[in-house]
């Protein structure tokens, strides 16, 4: 049994390595900038959703306010760069740390809430963050911040003529989030998180520190999402509150995981691989003058998938379970 388990873990790692290698080679064949753009976004959302999945999928604390951490990552990086000349690479780390600290600060009161009340709190807090940045003059308020582009530079992580560095960064972020999940899945934290999700009272009786489990999950999750936010800010080189902290980001982090299989290792990647290209393609095909047709098509597809596979797309690949009743 233990051998089975170890073999499964190793198999996951090998599949991930192969997929990452294939992904790394795609720019050799895909020269179209529009498609490259879709690939970058897909990888980014896969990484974000994977990070969201740590707190909401594994630990079961459903957050619809992760846009806050995404935006904090973006703003921390750009404010440090514009006001103090700190390179984005350091800004990225700073953004992660700031977000993790704020996630824990918010978790302190809000992890006492259970179920729907917690979800509502996350939405409200993210909206408050959005309003604060809307009115914060020093941070550019509603006007936002435009990052001056002065040619390609790895140091400043900005590129005008090529999208490839962004592509590889998004790929690295996605791999990092996946690997962190893989690693934590078979650790004390991973087990604690799943126990807390399934039954906090029982977890408590088995010596699980329920509150700190949630805090840990929130910190890891917020850190990784903030790194994603920093990346996005560099990628689009212009940020304003709506474009990095809007509610749609919270949804776009949650949806791939939910669609692919919440609380699973592969769910977010699978969900993002289908959902994000779909978002972009429906916008491309049905968007434009009609306005809204793309969203109807997109929404219908999500509803259909959810109806057919309520446990997520990943359940398509699930091995038949041993469910026979024995006595």
């Amino acid at each position, binding site marked *: *049994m233990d051998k089975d388990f170890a073999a499964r873990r190793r198999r996951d790692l090998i599949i991930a390595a192969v997929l990452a290698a294939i992904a790394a080679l795609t720019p050799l064949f895909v020269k179209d900038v529009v498609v490259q753009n879709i690939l970058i976004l897909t990888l980014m959302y896969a990484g974000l959703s994977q990070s969201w999945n740590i707190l909401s999928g594994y630990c079961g604390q459903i957050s619809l306010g992760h846009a806050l951490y995404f935006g904090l990552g973006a703003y921390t990086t750009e404010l440090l760069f514009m006001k103090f000349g700190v390179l984005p690479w350091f800004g990225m780390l700073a953004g992660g740390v700031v977000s993790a600290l704020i996630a824990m600060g918010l978790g302190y009161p809000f992890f006492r809430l259970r179920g729907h009340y917690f979800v509502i709190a996350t939405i409200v807090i993210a909206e408050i963050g959005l309003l604060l940045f809307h009115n914060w003059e020093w941070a550019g308020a509603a006007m936002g911040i435009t990052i001056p582009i002065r040619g390609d530079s790895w140091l400043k992580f900005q590129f005008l003529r090529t999208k490839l560095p962004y592509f590889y960064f998004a790929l690295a972020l996605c791999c990092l989030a996946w690997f962190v999940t893989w690693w934590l899945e078979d650790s*004390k934290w991973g*087990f604690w998180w*799943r126990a807390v*999700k399934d039954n906090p*009272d029982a977890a*408590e009786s088995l*010596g699980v520190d329920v509150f700190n489990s949630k805090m840990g999950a929130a910190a890891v999750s917020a850190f990784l999402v903030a790194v994603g936010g920093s990346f996005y800010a560099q990628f689009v080189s212009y940020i304003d509150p709506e474009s990095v902290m809007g509610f749609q980001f919270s949804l776009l982090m949650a949806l791939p995981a939910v669609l692919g299989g919440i609380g699973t290792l592969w769910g977010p990647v699978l969900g993002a691989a289908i959902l994000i290209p779909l978002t972009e393609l429906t916008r491309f095909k049905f968007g434009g003058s009609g306005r809204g047709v793309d969203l109807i098509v997109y929404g219908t597809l999500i509803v259909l998938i959810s109806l057919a596979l309520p446990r997520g797309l990943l359940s398509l690949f699930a091995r038949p379970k041993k469910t026979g*009743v*024995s006595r």
Partner: protein
Amino acid sequence: MTALLETRGVWQRFGGLVANSDVSISVGRGEIVGLIGPNGAGKSTLFNLIAGVLPPTQGSILFDGEDVTRLPAAARCQRGVGRTFQVVKSFETMTVIDNVIVGALVRNTVMREARRKAHEVLEFTGLAARADVLASDLVPAEKRRLEVARALATEPKLLLLDEVLTGLTPTEAQTGVALVRKVRDAGITVLMVEHVMEIVMPLVDRAIVLDLGKVLVEGKPADVVRDPKVIKAYLGDRHAVGA
């Protein structure tokens, strides 16, 4: 030798309702003690106070010579109190082995050791064949056993069993009784809440009867079942007169 568990003058009030009043009991090392009483006697409340779900309104609880009155459940688990739940609380989306690993992680920080410990406990409780099944797919009797297995994985000194034998078929109950004996033989003290007298009485070394939140009688099972006060509490005055 001091008792493993002792409650001293424990009171629990819920608003105007007094669930436990001045309850002082003690459980010695290596004993199987039955906590019995009619519905609403305050058994579950006392049980939850001992497990650390909530602190008592008044009084103190000593475990292994230490005052644990104010300690939360997780801290008591670390000190060696294991428990099951009357309404089973399995981790439904996790497999049987993973459920037990959560318990084993209290004393084993290395995953490999926790996993080995969990397998050991599954062997001990007779669930080994079901290790890779999801907890949600177990039949009720197996879920009860999983509760016990999970608690045992925390390597408790005291195991609190909350109606683990209630609602089982006679055969399942016999298997359960055998398991409880096996647990005691492994050196673990057992305090069990039950209200099915005929199952508990042959099993326990000592019985404590609660009624209306107070300790009514305690002693050897054979004496307890004949005690007029106990018969009265369970069946009413008319029967007690006859006894």
